[in-house]
C-alpha cells in the first residue's frame, strides 16, 4: 500500500513538473504583414473598411486586415485576422465571432462550387438579408477548413513548437435578389484568390 501511494505521488510530481517546467509559448515577435495583402485579387479591387455586422471583429485578434472588394456590380468583404499565444483559451479566435449572430434566424451550411480544398461556408439569414460567409484557418502556410482539424493542428503546434499563432480568413458576400448560386460562386472565386495570396503569409 505504502509503495503504491509513493508511486502515485511520484507520477503526480512528474506531471506537475512537466506542466511547470515546459517553456512558455513564444509571443509573436512582430505583427504579420497582413497589410501587404494584394489590393487586387482575381480581378476584385479593394476599398478599406467593412461593416462590423458583416464580419464581426474579434477582440482577441492581434492584427487584422478588413477590406471591401468589388468586381463590377459585385461586392464582397474579407477579413484576415492574426491570433497569437492561443495556448491561452482567452486569446483564441472565437467561434461566436466568425459571422454575425445577433438577430440571426437561420445558419445553413453551404458548399462552395470550387474544386479541391473547400473552405467552410454558411448562409446566414438575418432579418431580410442573407450573407454567404466562407472561412478557414491557416497555421504556417497550411490551411484548415475543419474546426476540429484546426484545433488538433494548433494543439500539435503548441506542444511541439511552442507556437500558438494562426490566421482566420473570412469572405462574406451578400446574397443578391437573383439567387444564392451567384453569391456562392463569387465567394468561391474570392476565397480561392485569397487562399493563394495568403499561402506565403505564415502569420508571424
Amino acid at each position, binding site marked *: 500500500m505504502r509503495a503504491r501511494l509513493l508511486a502515485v505521488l511520484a*507520477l503526480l510530481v512528474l506531471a506537475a513538473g512537466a506542466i511547470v517546467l515546459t517553456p512558455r509559448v513564444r509571443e509573436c515577435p512582430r505583427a504579420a504583414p497582413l497589410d501587404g495583402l494584394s489590393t487586387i485579387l482575381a480581378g476584385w479591387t479593394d476599398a478599406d473598411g467593412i461593416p462590423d455586422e458583416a464580419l464581426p471583429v474579434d477582440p482577441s485578434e492581434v492584427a487584422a486586415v478588413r477590406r471591401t472588394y468589388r468586381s463590377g456590380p459585385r461586392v464582397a468583404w474579407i477579413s484576415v485576422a492574426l491570433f497569437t499565444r492561443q495556448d491561452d483559451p482567452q486569446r483564441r479566435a472565437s467561434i461566436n465571432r466568425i459571422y454575425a449572430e445577433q438577430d440571426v434566424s437561420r445558419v445553413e451550411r453551404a458548399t462552395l462550387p470550387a474544386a479541391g480544398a473547400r473552405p467552410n461556408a454558411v448562409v446566414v439569414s438575418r432579418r431580410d438579408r442573407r450573407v454567404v460567409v466562407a472561412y478557414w484557418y491557416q497555421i504556417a502556410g497550411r490551411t484548415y477548413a475543419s474546426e476540429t482539424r484546426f484545433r488538433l493542428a494548433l494543439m500539435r503546434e*503548441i506542444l511541439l513548437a511552442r507556437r500558438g499563432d494562426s490566421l482566420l480568413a473570412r469572405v462574406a458576400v451578400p446574397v443578391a435578389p437573383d439567387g444564392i448560386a451567384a453569391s456562392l460562386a463569387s465567394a468561391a472565386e474570392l476565397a480561392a484568390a485569397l487562399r493563394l495570396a495568403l499561402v506565403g503569409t505564415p502569420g508571424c
Partner: protein
Amino acid sequence: MVSTLALYVPVLLGMVADWSRFPSQSHGFAVPAIAAYLIWMRRGPIASAAPDGSRATVAAGVAALIAALGALVIGSLAGETFLARASLPVALLGVALFVGGPGVLRHAWIGLAYLFFMVPLPYLTLKTLTYQSRLFDASATAAALRALGVPVLQDGVMLHLANMTLEVADECSSVPAIAALIALGVAYAQLHPRPTRVKVALALSAAPLGLAANILRLILTSLAAYALGPIALGNVIHRFGGTTVFLATILLLLLVDRVLTPTGPARTRGAARARG
C-alpha cells in the same frame, strides 16, 4: 486522492469560474457534493474491501492514472480545458483501482465517475448542439401552436406571431439544461435502492423529460405572448426558465419512478435485491 486533487487546483478553479459565469453550468457546484455523498453512502463496503495486489489490477490502475495525467499535461500546456478537466475523474478512478483494488473501485466508481457531470462540454460541441436544439424546439413549438389554432410563421429559430416575433435564443434551448438534467437523473436514481433497470431508465429519461418540459415552457410562453403581447415575456415561466424546466423535470422523474418501480411488497423485494 488529496495530492491528486492538489495537482488539479488550477483546473478546479477554472471550472468554478465557469460554473459561476454561466448559469447553464451552475449545477457543477452541486456535483462534487453529490459525488461525495454517493461515496459516503458506500463507505462501509469501501472500507471493508480487501486490497488486491494482482498484476492486472496494478497495471490497469497505473495505465488509467498515466493516461489521465498525460491528458492533464497536454490539456494544460495546449489550453485544451476540456481535456484537462475530464482527466480528473479518470485520475481518481485510476488511483482508486491502483491503491485500493477492484473491491474499492466496485463501490466507489459511481461517485468518482459522477464527477464527469461537473465538466462543461467543449464549447464547439455545445454550440452545435444548442443551435440544432433551438431549431428543433422552434419547430416543435410552431407545430403545437398551429395545432392549437394559433397562426404562426416559423423562420429558423424565429417564431412570427400575429402580434410579435419570438426568438428561441441560446438560453431558451434545451441543450444547456440537458447536462444538469442527466446529472440530476443519475443522482436521483442512485439515492434509493432500486432494481438496476429502473436506475438506468431513470438516468436515461431525464434528458428527454427535460426536452419535453422545455418545449412545454416555450409553448406556454408563446401562447401567453399571443394572448397578452410583450408583457407576457416578463412572466415567471419565461424569466425563470431554467428553474421551471428543472422543477417540471423533477416532477416528471417522480412520475416515471412511480410508474417503473413496483409498489407494495414487490417494491420492497426489488429494493432488497438492489441493496443486496
